[in-house]
């Protein structure tokens, strides 16, 4: 069974360890492709998630609480299809013990939801394996980020959020187009149907040196290994880094041999609190401590993350990608200008934008001003 999730901050390793295939909903081929009957102020992304969930009745969907629109999109969905929807409460704060405990309890609750839908009780070994494989994939993608052209990079990240794999070999560093202006794209989710935005930017004479949308580089947690949380005597050898597809995993299983009994212990929420061998707690901490998003309060982590990369990659302008009705991103436009002292172009995403003449014109003008 496929489990679709609406935010990259949902711990996909946990879903996979239950025997499901986690899929970033925005990566689906038919996501957000059709015109949506939007009422005033409704976010096209949240509406697309809702419509997608409604039309695919054989799958489970994990919504998150990151914004009003998604919370209430879940409300609208749950009224008719509550049984196969899960609302993951992502805390906006991260500094307190209460936020950490809440995040972990949500992971535990997600586990109960998955098991109620036929998932298996995950084993530590399964989880460690998935974490290792996904971490390696993320690591590879993060290394690619500074040198991969924008479009294939966005597709590679999407592939990762679709099936955990990378899907593209590391390309040789492309020669920058002569005179192209380095810019960053920052903001909410950039869906498959909206990736034309990246082409528009490059066609206008710029190159995207940072994709900090919710579905770009920013969505990739730094690598971590679950084995690090275990006592040394109980650690397993890391999975091979050569591949991330299912075949590679099978190879890795063979290399590692059969897991010992210690790793066959099922993960129960009640037995995994704050001990040295607390894989669930470790997973929770690694997520919570590395989420970089606009909904966090304060969202200083987002600015630190952006600042580091904007400087390192020499970005000279920011394209701010905002979905209609998204107050959280829209409110950042001025702060981005003030803090980074860079020109900011606010582009508003409607139902299936990413290539309109109006957008093209605005981008061209923006890039011209940066020359």
């Amino acid at each position, binding site marked *: 069974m496929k489990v679709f999730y609406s935010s990259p901050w949902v711990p996909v390793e946990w879903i996979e360890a239950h025997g499901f295939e986690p899929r970033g909903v925005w990566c689906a081929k038919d996501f957000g492709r059709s015109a949506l009957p939007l009422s005033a102020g409704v976010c096209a992304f949240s509406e697309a998630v809702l419509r997608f969930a409604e039309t695919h009745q054989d799958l489970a969907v994990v919504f998150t*609480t990151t914004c009003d629109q998604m919370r209430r999109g879940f409300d609208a969905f749950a009224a008719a299809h509550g049984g196969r929807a899960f609302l993951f409460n992502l805390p906006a704060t991260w500094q307190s013990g209460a936020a950490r405990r809440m995040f972990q309890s949500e992971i535990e609750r997600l586990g109960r939801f998955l098991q109620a839908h036929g998932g298996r009780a995950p084993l530590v070994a399964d989880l460690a394996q998935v974490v290792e494989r996904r971490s390696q994939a993320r690591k590879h993608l993060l290394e690619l980020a500074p040198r991969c052209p924008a479009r294939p990079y966005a597709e590679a990240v999407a592939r990762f959020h679709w099936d955990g794999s990378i899907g593209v070999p590391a390309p040789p560093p492309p020669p920058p187009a002569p005179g192209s202006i380095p810019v960053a794209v920052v903001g909410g989710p950039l869906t498959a149907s909206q990736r034309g935005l990246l082409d528009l930017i490059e066609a206008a004479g710029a190159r995207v040196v940072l994709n900090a949308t919710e579905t770009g580089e920013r969505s990739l947690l730094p690598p971590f290994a679950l084995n690090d949380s275990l006592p040394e005597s109980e650690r397993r050898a890391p999975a091979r880094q050569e591949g991330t597809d299912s075949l590679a995993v099978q190879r890795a299983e063979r290399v590692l041999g059969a897991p010992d009994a210690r790793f066959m212990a099922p993960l129960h929420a009640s037995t995994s609190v704050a001990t040295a061998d607390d894989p669930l707690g470790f997973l929770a901490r690694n997520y919570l401590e590395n989420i970089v998003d606009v909904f966090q309060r304060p969202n200083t982590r987002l600015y630190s993350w952006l600042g580091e990369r904007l400087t390192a990659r020499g970005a000279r302008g920011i394209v701010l990608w905002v979905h209609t009705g998204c*107050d959280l991103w829209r409110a950042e436009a001025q702060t981005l200008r003030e803090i980074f002292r860079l020109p900011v172009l606010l582009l508003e995403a409607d139902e299936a934008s990413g290539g309109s003449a109006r957008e093209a014109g605005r981008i061209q003008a923006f890039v011209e001003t940066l020359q």
Partner: protein
Amino acid sequence: MKATPRKLSLGEWDERYAQLRSAGLKEAAYGGPLCRHVVKESDLRLQHLRFDNSPAALRLWNFLLTENERLHQARAGGEKIVGVMKDLGTVPVMAYALSGVRAFYLDGAWWTPCLMECSDRLLQQAEALGIDASFCPVRAMLSAFLNGEHFPRPDLLICSAGAVCDDLSAIAQRLEKMGFPIVWWEMPRRRQPDSDEAPCALPGNLVAPQIQVDCVREELQRVGQSLSALAGRPLDERTLADGIRKANEIRRRLHALRVAAYSAPGAPLPALEMLIAEMLAIHFCSDREETIAVLGELLAEAEKRIRQKQFITGADAVRIFWVNPVADLRAMNLLEDWGGRVCGSDYMFTHALDLIPEDLPPLEALARIALADPMVGSTAERASRIVAECRQFGAEAVVVSRIPGASHCAREGEIIREIVQKSLGLPTIELEIPPVCDAMLPTLGSRLQALVETARARRQS
């Protein structure tokens, strides 16, 4: 001096005020003729409103319209000022438990553009700060905070985060980025407990998993530490319990007023004054003791009118349940002009109307009440309470008032209307009301009229 209940224009209130004064009217320190607020504070909207003619209403309006002035006086007197955002009703209970501390909601500045008919230019100033008209009118708080022309700049800022309105959260974040630190505390999105989780009963006939209550309690403890540090004295259990008892005194009076006004055959007080009275619950209009007195007087007036069968609206006025506060106060007058009356309300803070449990440790009680916020749970749960109150007060129609730009309004109205229609079969309507609705009066009027006519027609069928 006796007078039949009716609504007066500002000019008519001047005459009435002179008569009351000559008849020996005693007023609080902030008393005076209403017209002075137009002159002194540029509260131009008052010229287009109509007010209840009782001395109790006069006191209510003067209390409301002098809030900023009273806050400045408190600051000058050495008191500490806390600016609270979003939780609407909980943190002020904690702050007022500490002597020498006053708390007010910055959110309340959303009515300033209405009261000043946008002559304050707060909305334009907010736009210049990057918060444009795609945000709800609460954006006025950003510019009001920065220009310092309204409320005093608080000594401490506290804002709930998580399951809160995006508009306010984003604007508060902007404020912090401009150099004003905020104590953020987590408010999880309330949910039903799973079968294997310990449930916890909340005020308002709600339930949540105990684990969520624990989270909020811990966060409120952190908030309490900040308040203690500001006040220079501990916010211990005894102090907090006393604060809860005082808050409950206000909530009991408000409850009695709502039940009296909304269940009476006619409206003993106008919808506008009832809206203002309910708003007192969230931060006591910056004076807890005075709020008790103001509500006491309003309650006495309402009870007297009910006894005497004297009402502001006719007995045939259509009983309407109103959802969400209006950005333009004039809308409440309009409803009555078109033959309606408010007989129930959900102005987004029903949890501030419920009693805080007094038989629990204070922080546990406050956590439960905070988590009972209608805006942090599902829209379906909010709608359930609306349905229950519609039944209790015999509503004949429901108005869902949209707040322009508010992120929660994009979807919630449709969900609420659907549940109300399915449960009660009542006619419902959604109206968007901007801070100054004059340009929309014909549209608003015709929509309200249609609702009232539909509800009347249902009486005959």
